[in-house]
């Protein structure tokens, strides 16, 4: 049917005006300027969100939606939307322009993709809200590209209320799991996938990606689901790292006991949870700072966490409460993730009858696992648009390795800007919390620590995994050597160093504070050891985990405070066993960098 050629912006304004025409007219009658002002604010809020809405077109494979979250063009979407597009795609904005975009990172388990629009550094964008504050009844609206209607690149708006929070929607096989998601009655139709869900202030509370459908086919029945902003924030670092992010498992299966408690029904003895003392029949009280009262709640918490994070776990056995930090393992092996990306993983098992269909793609979209366009072979990028050349590097294990280098070098630059980067000899001396003095000296040819129990020395140029020193620390000296080398020589000269992503600066604070701060993490495989270095916003290393052997407890070094660019307190532990707390005195004049 021909439609009058009004611009969608006019339609949006018209629709919004209609929606509250009843109110507005009665308000007019009462001469209530306040109401009209409120209405104008809402129209303005929707206009701002619309500006950040992305229409994704993947050619014949379909398309969907996205939402810009940074001025330099990073946009969130769904894995099932970008997967058919492959590494490059076209993205439309409300300004009526089409932009080249390139894939950055993927999270197949959480159905999230990060892409980067190119050509501007002043893209309109929205900020992520604290989605744990969202309540049933809150106003919300979606901006997206339902049924791929946005052929003129202008998004459609649908409004509603939040119907439920902390919902759990089962995965298809092991991917596309919607944990802790937000349920809305705003219309979410095929094509809305990947688009933003916004609160009354226009902040991003989630990314729409799924809906419950029934007998009427794949159209909205008032039950849509959005990936929560807080889950997206947890994975943002891994996505920006150009990685194929993986979700977490505790290495344990839980079940509801006869008396309604959530208890461990099975546990892997190779898991960190086992090493931390969790056993069969233990009750799970809380995970990552969130209470666990149902199996769903357990899956909701785990489903929002990246593999590799350390999180607090509280359990109970025989009336006694145990608190520990536990390191989360990955749901998939790297090979399994690669197979999912290649689209050749075995089909997921038939879902239970009550499970709704997945939503996505063009009018009805792909029903099964999204198939992916094969990536261009290395060196065969000639077919790519000029704008994306040099921005695409589909290395095994990465969605797009190019962006890993970008992030790695950003962090390395901050590290190199620190005061200590120019000092040749690093000296840390002071007293142990347990009593006695210590002295650490790090140089190119030797790393030495003097403790009341004796002196330990290693050669920084040799393999670092041979003899973890000092004894019992798990490799404190090796950790410090990797730290110094990264700061002084840079990532390119430090074995194989990549940007890992982000992780909580203080895992114990998870759940205790709103939106706990995350810090950058660099990962170095060098001289036989593997280390993760936590780097804060000021370019200071605040922690190091160092493994001399995989699947064993790492040496965990945590820094606090600052004395001329060096930490004031160094806390060293291995597993749950503290090794030492070192209090650094002001450095001697000769050692000052």
């Amino acid at each position: 049917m021909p439609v009058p050629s009004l611009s969608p912006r006019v339609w949006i304004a018209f629709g919004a005006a209609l929606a509250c025409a009843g109110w507005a007219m009665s308000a007019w009658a009462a001469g209530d300027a306040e109401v009209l002002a409120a209405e104008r604010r809402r129209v303005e809020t929707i206009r701002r969100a619309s500006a950040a809405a992305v229409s994704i077109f993947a050619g014949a494979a379909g398309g969907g939606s996205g939402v810009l979250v940074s001025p330099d063009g990073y946009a969130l979407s769904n894995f099932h939307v970008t997967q058919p597009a492959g590494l490059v795609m076209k993205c439309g904005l409300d300004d009526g322009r089409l932009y080249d975009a390139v894939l950055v990172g993927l999270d197949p388990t959480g159905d999230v993709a990060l892409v980067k629009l190119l050509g501007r550094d002043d893209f309109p964008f929205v900020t992520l809200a604290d989605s744990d504050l969202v309540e049933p009844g809150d106003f919300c609206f979606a901006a997206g590209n339902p049924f791929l209607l946005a052929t003129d690149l202008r998004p459609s708006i649908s409004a509603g209320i939040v119907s439920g929070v902390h919902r759990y929607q089962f995965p298809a096989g092991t991917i596309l799991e919607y944990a802790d998601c937000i349920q809305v009655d705003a219309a979410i139709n095929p094509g809305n996938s990947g688009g933003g869900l916004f609160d009354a202030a226009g902040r991003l509370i989630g990314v729409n990606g799924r809906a419950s459908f029934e007998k009427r086919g794949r159209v909205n029945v008032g039950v849509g689901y959005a990936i929560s902003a807080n889950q997206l924030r947890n994975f943002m670092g891994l996505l920006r790292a150009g990685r194929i992010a993986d979700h977490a498992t505790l290495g344990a299966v839980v079940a509801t006991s006869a008396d309604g408690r959530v208890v461990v029904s099975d546990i892997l003895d190779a898991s960190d949870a086992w090493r931390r003392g969790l056993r069969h029949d233990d009750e799970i009280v809380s995970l990552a700072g969130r209470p666990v009262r149902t199996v769903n709640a357990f899956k909701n918490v785990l489903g929002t966490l990246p593999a590799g994070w350390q999180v607090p776990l509280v359990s109970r056995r025989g009336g006694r409460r145990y608190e520990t930090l536990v390191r989360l393992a990955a749901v998939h092996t790297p090979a399994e993730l690669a197979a999912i990306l290649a689209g050749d993983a075995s089909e997921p098992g038939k879902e239970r009858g009550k499970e709704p269909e997945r939503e996505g793609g063009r009018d009805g979209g792909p029903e099964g696992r999204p198939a992916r366009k094969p990536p261009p072979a290395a060196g065969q990028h000639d077919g790519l648009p000029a704008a994306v050349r040099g921005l695409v590097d589909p290395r095994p294990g990465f969605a797009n390795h190019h962006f890993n280098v970008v992030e790695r070098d950003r962090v390395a630059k901050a590290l190199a800007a620190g005061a200590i980067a120019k000092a040749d000899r690093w000296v840390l001396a002071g007293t142990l919390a347990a009593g006695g003095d210590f002295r650490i000296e790090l140089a190119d040819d030797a790393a030495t620590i003097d403790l009341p129990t004796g002196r330990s020395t290693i050669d920084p140029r040799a393999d670092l995994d041979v003899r973890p020193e000092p004894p019992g620390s798990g490799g404190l000296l090796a950790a410090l050597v990797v730290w110094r080398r990264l700061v002084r020589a840079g990532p390119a000269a430090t074995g194989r160093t990549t940007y890992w992503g982000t992780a909580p600066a203080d895992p114990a604070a998870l759940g205790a504070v709103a939106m706990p701060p995350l810090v950058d993490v660099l990962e170095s495989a060098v001289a036989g050891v593997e280390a993760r270095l936590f780097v804060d916003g000021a370019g200071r290393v605040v922690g190091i985990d160092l493994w001399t052997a995989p699947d064993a407890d790492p040496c965990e070094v945590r820094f606090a405070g600052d004395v001329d660019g060096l930490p004031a307190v160094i806390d060293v532990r291995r597993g749950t066993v503290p090794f030492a707390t070192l209090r650094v005195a002001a450095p001697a004049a000769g050692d000052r960098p």
Partner: protein
Amino acid sequence: MTTAFRRLLVVTLLFGLDLPAAAAGETPQQVIAAAARKVVKIYGAGGLRGLEGYQSGIIVTPDGKIATAASTVLDSDEIDCVLDDGRRFRARLVGVDPRRELALLAIDAEGLPAFAPAAAERAAAGTRVLALSNLFGVAVGDERVSVQRGVVSAVVPLAARRGAADAPYRGAVYVLDCTTNNPGSAGGALVDARGRLLGMLGKELRSTASGIWLNYALPTDELARGCAEIEAGTVARPAAVEVRPFDPRRLGIVLVPDLLDSTPAYVESLVPDSPAARAGLVRDDLVIAVNGRAVPSRAAVERTLGELAAGDPVRLAVVRDGAVVDVDLGPRPQDKETR
């Protein structure tokens, strides 16, 4: 306009686009949380696709009386009710009002938050409403049921059917502009902006006139009357459910004339270019089953086809030259009588 009301209006416009204006002093979020405590998740028989084993219910007395939709979910000795706080109770079926398709359950509990259906609230076309239910069974344990917002579109007598069977209730219902026609929604609560009960969400039915899926609720006064009749044991028996036979000529099948008490369903001829002709049905085929159900006679074919809804797939088993052949006819068309 009072200042309080003006402020409320502004709040509603700003934060609750389609939320009805809440009672002064209570946010919509608080109204919803309070109403949700009076809605339960019900689990019973079922579990197959299209025949879900769950629905919703409304607590109507503090001592554990729960009103819900009469459905196959209750065809079980093990009906469980899960409260908003996660407590799980085995329920007893007090009774059923087949005309209103209403059932009353009882659980062994005290001091529950409850709606008061006796104090009937009335809604009219245009009333803004909230629907609370465990649609799609999405909430489990202590998770809160879902809430949707909408408007009462009309207050009219129900003219609905399930398949070809007319729904027994013909009284007034609230027709809703709100998609409550979802698995698990039946038995949920329709409340007003202050959280007062307006009605009970209905079952998955289609309009007799148009065939479209209806979103409707049984008004509270009918709900209260039904509950009272169940408790008093004075429930009226409904008229027998009437199935409209479906003329197979609508599919292009002309069966032999129905001359005997039980005329075998032989195909006399086929309408050219009809679904049946295209599907490969031929003259003298003997129809022995419709969608897996044995049909011993011509009348049984018409009755069994009539029990299907328009759009349901039709699959016949026929005997041809001594062998049984399956024939897919595609979706069943509308009745002649309905548009």
